[in-house]
């Protein structure tokens, strides 16, 4: 029984400009103590998925319109707001992207940490304060007794993110969701914060979901990776396997658009052409088809389900032996993945069917 089990999650935003199809049926499991990376470009539904799990979607626009989320044996989507509030912080916590705006500017660090602890534990101010000092020491903030009385604006970005981590881990939750925790930080601070996160989650046995668009970040931090595109998981695999054998054209594209220090002189980066699909339209076919070099005629009409790369393999969803799965009609071969483009003799990406062609004329050059 997995700690977290997301099944067929659908999230839509009802706005004045129409419905945004943010998450279109996402399923994944997470075991206790596991670290899962969710990778994808902006707007692919990474953050929305995590906010949906926490039941913190902006109301009234954001709605969970399908699927289920089971956490620790409980159906989260059936929980009342009061039950969710009990669980947030105690059982599940979240770290946000921008530490500069995630702390209340008018309250001291002490007030914010103490209130987090007291929201869940019946402890006196002194005891909560002592715990806060302990936590600040753990996350590596010097002179915690003095710093506790400081206001957020007296902290640097990296230190604020340390405080956020301390608050998120204050009650030793079972699940920690880190939504781009290092995006707003300097590169040198990024490494420190990531190392801290990894050390603490390992020590406490906290399961973590690390959301990022930075493949370098997930490579060293996670055991498994889900690659998301346009509200779908397009590829799921153990980290090493994903980097060794990327099997979705989008994953291949992502890997080829990162500059590498060990690249051969003169080797070119291959960008992914085009832009993500307009999510105001209900998706038809594979969402990546318009940008894909490997597409077949089928790709325009049917969206392939997430299936094992090695056919007929029994699907394992969690742990280091998780099945490598991909949602693709025409997976790139290892050779093609290495080259970053189709190598088959005479292969041409299927042109869009005439019905979609007119609509896509603007998007696809």
């Amino acid at each position, binding site marked *: 029984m997995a700690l977290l089990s997301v099944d067929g999650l659908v999230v839509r935003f009802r706005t004045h400009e129409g419905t945004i199809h943010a998450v279109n049926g996402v399923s994944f499991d997470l075991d206790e103590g596991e670290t899962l990376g969710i990778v994808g470009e902006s707007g692919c539904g990474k953050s929305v998925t995590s906010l949906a799990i*926490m039941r*913190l979607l*902006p109301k009234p626009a954001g709605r969970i319109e399908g699927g289920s989320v089971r956490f620790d044996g409980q159906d989260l989507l059936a929980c009342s707001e009061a039950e969710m*509030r*009990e*669980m*947030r*912080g*105690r059982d599940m*916590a*979240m770290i*946000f992207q*921008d530490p500069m*705006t*995630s*702390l*209340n*500017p*008018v*309250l*001291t660090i002490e*007030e*914010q940490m103490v*209130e*987090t602890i007291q*929201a*869940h534990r019946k402890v006196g101010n002194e005891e909560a304060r002592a715990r806060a000092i302990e936590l600040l020491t753990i996350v*590596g*903030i*010097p*002179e915690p007794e*003095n*710093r506790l*009385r*400081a*206001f957020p*604006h*007296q*902290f*640097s970005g*990296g*230190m604020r993110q*340390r405080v*956020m981590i301390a*608050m*998120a881990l*204050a009650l030793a939750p079972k699940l920690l969701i880190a939504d781009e925790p290092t995006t707003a930080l300097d590169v*040198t*601070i990024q490494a*420190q914060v990531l*190392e*801290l996160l990894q050390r603490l989650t390992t020590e406490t046995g906290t399961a973590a979901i690390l959301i990022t668009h930075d493949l370098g970040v997930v490579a060293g931090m996670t055991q498994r990776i889900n690659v998301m595109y346009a509200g779908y998981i397009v590829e799921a695999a153990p980290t090493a396997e994903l980097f060794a054998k990327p099997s979705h054209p989008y994953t291949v594209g992502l890997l080829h658009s990162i500059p590498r220090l060990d690249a051969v002189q003169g080797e070119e980066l291959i960008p992914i052409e085009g832009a993500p699909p307009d999510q105001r339209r209900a998706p038809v076919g594979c969402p990546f088809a318009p940008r894909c070099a490997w597409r077949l005629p089928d790709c325009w009409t049917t969206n392939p389900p997430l299936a094992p790369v090695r056919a007929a393999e029994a699907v394992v969803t969690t742990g280091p032996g998780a099945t490598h799965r991909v949602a693709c009609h025409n997976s790139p071969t290892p050779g093609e993945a290495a080259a970053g483009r189709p190598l088959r003799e005479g292969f041409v990406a299927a042109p869009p069917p005439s019905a979609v062609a007119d609509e896509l004329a603007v998007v696809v050059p």
Partner: protein
Amino acid sequence: MASGTVAVARVAPRASRGLWGDAWRRLLRNRPALLGFVFIGVFVGTAVLAPLLAPHDPGALYPPPPDASSGATGPYPPRPEHLMGQDLQGRDEFTRVVYGARISLLVGLGSVIFGVILGGFVGAIAGAAGGRADNVLMRVVDVLLAIPGILLAIGIVAWLDRGLPQITIAVAVTNAPIFARLLRGGLLAIRESDYVLAARSVGVPTRRLLLRHMLPNSLTPIIVAATLALATAIIDVAGLGFLGLGPPDPRTPEWGTMLTDSTKFLRAAPYLIFFPGLAIVISAVGFNLLGDGLRESLDPRLKK
């Protein structure tokens, strides 16, 4: 993780002053605001120390100057015993201006405090509850804002009858919609902020979220607006007095009422207009300058 410790330790601990401490220091560097402080100091000081400052009794009638022809009536021009002259009945104008500060301060402050409470209450409900309650309350606010303030105040005084408490209520009600709208807008913006989301993500209870996180962060515009509203409240009170809706007891030294009583002698006794008018200007300008200064010093974007 030695490198991390070094990088963090370099940030020297600094005394916690907080946002308000910083704002206060910025305010003290703002010259117009300091001038506002001086004006307000004169105004409030006069009101508080009125019995010590005023040489006479504000209600007593004093004899005309000895050189006045027999049978002459007031007003009488300023002379050493009566620095600002005497009014129609022979009362000491200086004493009445001094005691008038008490009335203006009391009614002005009372109406703004009452207005902030009333408007704040409505705005907090609208901003926190949202939905239908928000819609209904804000439409009421829109209607109140559509009526010119002084007209609304006249209507309320006419309805409640004349008197200082009634004037206080009237001016409070005309001011309240502004505060309601400000607080609601602030709360709505802050509800979507990252730190509220972060606080929710660790399970901070709703009540605490509203009282400790959202309200304090939406108070700055209210403080600025309240200071500026004090200026308009003083003018509104004087305006009501000038229009004959001041306190019914003619002995009450209310600046606006004093102006009305003196308009008949504008040419003969301009001093009866000048001094109460000057008092109104000093107090109103004082709060205006301070309000503008506060707005600048509390705005983090203008941080120097």
